[in-house]
């Protein structure tokens, strides 16, 4: 190829509105890390949270990998059951507590059912950390209100514990956590502490009256309106089933929260978790690398395909 020709072609290739460009082929170094290879880990504890949710505490088998494991609150991991498959869960222990990595798994299909069969001592594969995280830097100095529904409490737990561990960085912290029934409440071992500690205001709610229940009864968005957190200098972080999110966002807007003040996480079917397999896109965003954490302002700028 002559110089002029190749110049003309490279000009054509990189100009907007053209097809694939030329350019050097990507280099390959033999020692490239393999992002598809899970790290073997051992289950050290299994907690039965509810009839459909189990919590697993894992330690990476490679001591050094465990010691050097660095992640941010809100990042996720892929858990592998070799021979069954892999699926995505948020690391719901905070980076400030690194004796183990905690995942809470709701039984939903094949791989989650297999995960529910794990006992202490069993082996799983872990690919982590993946995805983005909660923008906790920009939340410093602000009041925080957490609104979690069902298994959606898992990502909130990470950030909540992280903030409690770095408590002086934040203003007033409130938590509204709802589930269908008392049996469906995950993290029940921690709830008594969350309810009594002075640096956190916790409100629990269930959908319908139940015997012995001493807390709120009512749907999350309604209880939120009752709590009526003031939007000034406050960030709302919410996660839960789609229908709850829909009405919670409406309630927050009614209370005067701007889209920039509302943070949520998205769920999409995922495979690679690293932005390559093409499965989890919403327009030009890939939930696995650009998310799962988004502000409502960001979501409003994206194609409506939830």
């Amino acid at each position: 190829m002559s110089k002029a020709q190749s110049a003309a072609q490279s000009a054509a290739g990189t100009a907007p509105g053209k097809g694939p460009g030329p350019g050097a082929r990507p280099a390959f170094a033999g020692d490239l890390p393999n992002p598809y290879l899970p790290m073997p880990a051992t289950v050290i504890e299994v907690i039965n949270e509810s009839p459909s949710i189990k919590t697993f505490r894992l330690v990476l088998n490679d001591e050094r990998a465990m010691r050097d494991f660095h992640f941010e609150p809100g990042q996720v991991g892929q858990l592998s059951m070799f021979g069954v498959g892999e699926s995505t869960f948020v690391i719901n222990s905070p980076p400030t507590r690194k004796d183990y990595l905690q995942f809470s798994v709701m039984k939903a299909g094949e791989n989650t059912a297999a995960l529910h069969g794990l006992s202490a001592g069993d082996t799983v594969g872990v690919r982590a950390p993946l995805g983005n995280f909660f923008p906790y830097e920009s939340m410093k100095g602000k009041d925080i209100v957490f609104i979690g529904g069902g298994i959606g409490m898992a990502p909130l737990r990470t950030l909540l514990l992280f903030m409690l561990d770095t408590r002086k960085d934040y203003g007033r912290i409130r938590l509204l956590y709802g589930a269908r029934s008392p049996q469906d409440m995950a993290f029940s071992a921690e709830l008594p502490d969350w309810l009594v500690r002075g640096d956190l205001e916790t409100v629990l709610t269930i959908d319908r009256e139940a015997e012995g229940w001493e807390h709120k009864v009512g749907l999350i968005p309604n209880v939120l309106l009752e709590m009526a957190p003031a939007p000034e200098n406050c960030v709302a972080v919410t996660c839960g089933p789609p229908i709850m999110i829909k009405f919670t966002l409406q309630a927050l807007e009614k209370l005067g929260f701007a889209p920039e003040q509302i943070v949520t996480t998205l769920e999409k079917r995922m495979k690679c978790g690293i932005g390559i397999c093409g499965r989890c896109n919403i327009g030009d965003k890939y939930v696995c690398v650009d998310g799962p954490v988004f502000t409502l302002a960001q979501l409003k700028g994206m194609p409506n395909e939830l």
Partner: protein
Amino acid sequence: MSDRSFTPAFISFKALSGWLRALAQKATVHAPRREGRAVVYRELGDGQGLESFLRPTESAKHVLFPRSEALFSFQRQGEAAGAASGKIRLQEPEGEGPAIIFGALSCDARGFLSFDPVYDGCGTAQAVGGIAKDPYYLRRRANTSIIVRACKSALNTCFCHWVGGGPASTEGADLLATDLEGGLLLSPCSEAGAALLEHPDCVPALPEQIAAAAALHAAAERSLGEAPPAGELAASRAALLALFENSEFWQRQSAQCLSCGACTYLCPTCYCFNITDESNGIAGARLRSWDSCMSALFTLEASGHNPRAAKAARLKNRVGHKFSYYPAIHEGRFSCCGCGRCIKSCPSSVDIRKIVLAAIKEAAHV
């Protein structure tokens, strides 16, 4: 790419299979072969009919991105039952040796250029865990030479010139072969391509052979239909976003679609894959296999929720990805090389060109 100008060679058709067999001593050579009504790539074999120009029905993407491959295998150790008990040993596959694709179309060579940034992690530059590169693809990419055979004339489904290509484009090619009387002119476009010519039967080309090839390239170029101005086509980015919620438009465009996925499997720029496990309880492998965003299962979540349950939403995503979302991430380049395979192979005549132009027109009216 080197600045040195490469010297073209000529090889007679008689010597062609000998040369390719010599190349096959050092690399796996994939070349088109007619099988039934299709032309497919096969490892070089006897009686392959290399002398005549064959237009491959499929793209050559499987050479770098196999239909299915093991990402790793696993083996349970000790007396084991169930998916978790006992220790597990993971083993990555050994990479294959070098490969040569002979007789690719120019659009196919350009198709790989749209894979490159994806597998090289350029779309994940913002990823917190660091940029993830795909070692399986990159190893093969570095190990594969591509010999493009210039098209003699375009089909009415071809539109490589809309997206910056042409019947004799050398982008992404190592060697450009042009069919002349009695043999092929072989013009190197890279060092790797030039190295393939180190063979006694590859003789220096005569000036008139080089001139004849240039004339053929120009004739092939003329056989292409008219292209919309590049500036107009670039409007697809905004237009497809503007029409995102226009379900009436997408229902109209997708009315004929059967969701068969033929378009995605034959497409040189479709790279979506699935990851699944295969196991006999003790040993097994994690596989990655081609997948299709035209399938309703592609986005089906465990809860039963499916953001693209309707075929209109899926076709919208396929066209949107190629002409809007991918360009937004990758410097405005389309992820379509204009090969026309999706148009030619679609059982119900869905035509991506028409959809893109209709979207641009429709968006201009609102």
